[in-house]
């Protein structure tokens, strides 16, 4: 298949040069406007489940690139989490926290408060942070080298105040 949109980190562009006056700052609404309009149109084309899958995969690709470009390589889990917390906070993506982590078993419970995607959204009755799920799964895989499946269990959109994600290592890569 011919590809025109293969992602690379360079596609984020030179912000300083391109936006000398406006800079990096933008409004969350703009980000959400784009995400939810994407969802709308894609859902119309491929349906709800496929849309979720697309966003999960897109989040995963973002997570892979993010890990490669924003996280220093480390074998220390705590150090990895510290870096992640710091950079997510600095970029205004959310307040990332670990509730439980058992890397030997490959089981984690993670939360993101003030999430970029959903915090403050009206209740929809279903979890919508599929992009986050893929993003987190890729980050964990980047660190551990083991594929993870991440599922959102609590979401602002289901009436919770913090997004909670359950992550489990899979044997996919083995």
């Amino acid at each position, binding site marked *: 298949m011919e590809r025109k949109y293969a992602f690379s980190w360079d596609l984020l562009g030179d912000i300083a040069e391109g936006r000398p006056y406006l800079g990096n700052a933008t409004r969350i609404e703009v980000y959400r406007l784009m995400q939810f309009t994407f969802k709308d149109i894609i859902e119309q084309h491929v349906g709800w489940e496929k849309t979720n899958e697309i966003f999960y995969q897109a989040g995963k690709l973002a997570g892979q690139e993010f890990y490669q470009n924003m996280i220093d390589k480390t074998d220390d889990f*705590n*150090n990895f989490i*510290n870096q992640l917390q710091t950079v997510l*906070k600095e970029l205004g993506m959310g*307040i990332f*926290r*670990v*509730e*439980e*982590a058992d890397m030997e078993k490959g089981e984690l*419970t993670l*939360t993101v*408060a003030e999430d970029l995607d959903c915090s403050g959204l009206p*209740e929809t009755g279903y979890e919508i942070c599929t992009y986050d799920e893929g993003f987190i799964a890729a980050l964990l895989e980047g660190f551990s080298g083991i594929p993870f499946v991440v599922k959102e269990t*609590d979401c*602002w959109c*289901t*009436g*919770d*105040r*913090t997004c*909670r994600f359950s992550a489990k290592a899979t044997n996919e890569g083995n």
Partner: protein
Amino acid sequence: MISKDARSLLDYLKALLNDVRIKPDIPTDMIDDEDFLCLDKTIKSVREAALELGKGNLSYSIEGKGYVLGSLKALQSSLRNLTWKTKAIAAGDFSQSVHFLGDFSDSFNSMTKQLAVSIQEIKEAQEHFEMVFNTIPDATIITNFEDGSLVAYNQAFIETTKFSVAELNQNPVTIIDLYLNIEERKMLLEKLKKDGYIENAEISFLGRSGEILTGLISSRLIFMKEVPHILSVIRDITELKEIEKKLQKSEELHRLLADNAADVIWTMNLDGKFSYISPSVKKLRGFSVEEVLAQSQEEVLCPGSLIHLQQGLERAIHSVQNNQPFQVFRGELEQPCKDGSTVWTEATVSGIYSEDGRFIGMLGVTRDISERKIMEEEILRLSITDKLTQSYNRLKLDETLEQQFERAKTEAIPFSIIILDIDHFKLVNDTYGHQVGDRVLIELVAALTENVRSDDIVGRWGGEEFLIILPETNLSDGLHVAEKLRDVVETYRFTTAGQVTISLGVSAYRDDLTPESIVSRADAALYQAKENGRNRVEFLE
């Protein structure tokens, strides 16, 4: 006013929120109302979630959705995150910090920082302790108080006991195995229990091959994870003890020799005090060892000999100060005895030096030389005594004459001499024989000696001629003495020979005379006395 149904509903909801036990039955009118059932379920979920969170059960799964339950989940999430962070900190990760939890974040982060500093300080203290522990030159160990198992040891312990690290790792050693006498350990443990420490207790312990080692152990009771342990530093004094034994033997041998020697052997410090004196001093001076050790220098030596000791001490101090060897002293000393008499001794004194060449005192040997002294005096007496008459001989007379002349010359103190000769002595010999003649000579000396001063010197000048030296006597007084002696002899009745007379010539010192000319002038005067009829005194003008 509200209806009965509404009252019933309110009571139910009130009980749901406030009572410990909730009423099991939903108001009958509401049993089919879905909204009410949803509300009922949410309130019950909130009750359960609040209850479990209140108990600290963070793993409780909060069921349901909605704002209140969501907030409780957020609280649960924060608490879970804090738990995870606390575990990470407990595992030593002090990079953990908490944000977006208000004042709690600051307190928590401050506590983490302080904990990190404290742990770092403890770590540094531990590293410091380990460095000191490992580099301390004495064997240092930590043992379990109860079973004596060796918990830690340093390189010096390995070197002292000759165990290898591999051996100690493979076959753990307990300190109990290393005690030669286990009773010693029991006593040490008792003291540790009582005082909490032991300082420099001497113990015997075994090395790897069973060799017996001696050590000075200092211990402290310490607690490691609340279990009592003993930190011990053991100074290996095995070699020192061997040297000490040899020294003791050597010292005993030397003391045995010293104690049994006839000579008095002693050691003295630079302050002039005896540090040792052999018991033979009792035989020499009558004082016991204890008495002598307590005596002052003045009590040890007679005044004439004290100067030797003082000079000896000065020389010793000078030698020490100038890093010069102590010169051996040998001299005769007069020492007081307990019975009031004195004894002449000959002392030989040499320096005592430490192994590093430091002067540490004096070693002396004192020998009784009383008999030798008497012999010497007798020899001296005989050398200046006329054998027949026991008066002084010509040697003594010449010597005295010289001395008096020098004294008169330098101090202007006069002296006189008398030369006398027995009149017609040949007739005595011819008449009574030489034995009577000799007897006359002897009795004459006795008569002369009795009638002069003790300082006056009476000697035989030759044959029947005698010379008397009168110190501090001018010519006039000399003439008086001569006349007195002439009279004494004239009136004396000699054994067998009866009356015998003497002629006397007197001369006195003058600064224009020599000793010889003084004698010549007395001799000439004697000749004149003979010429003038004998039994008389003459002098030259």
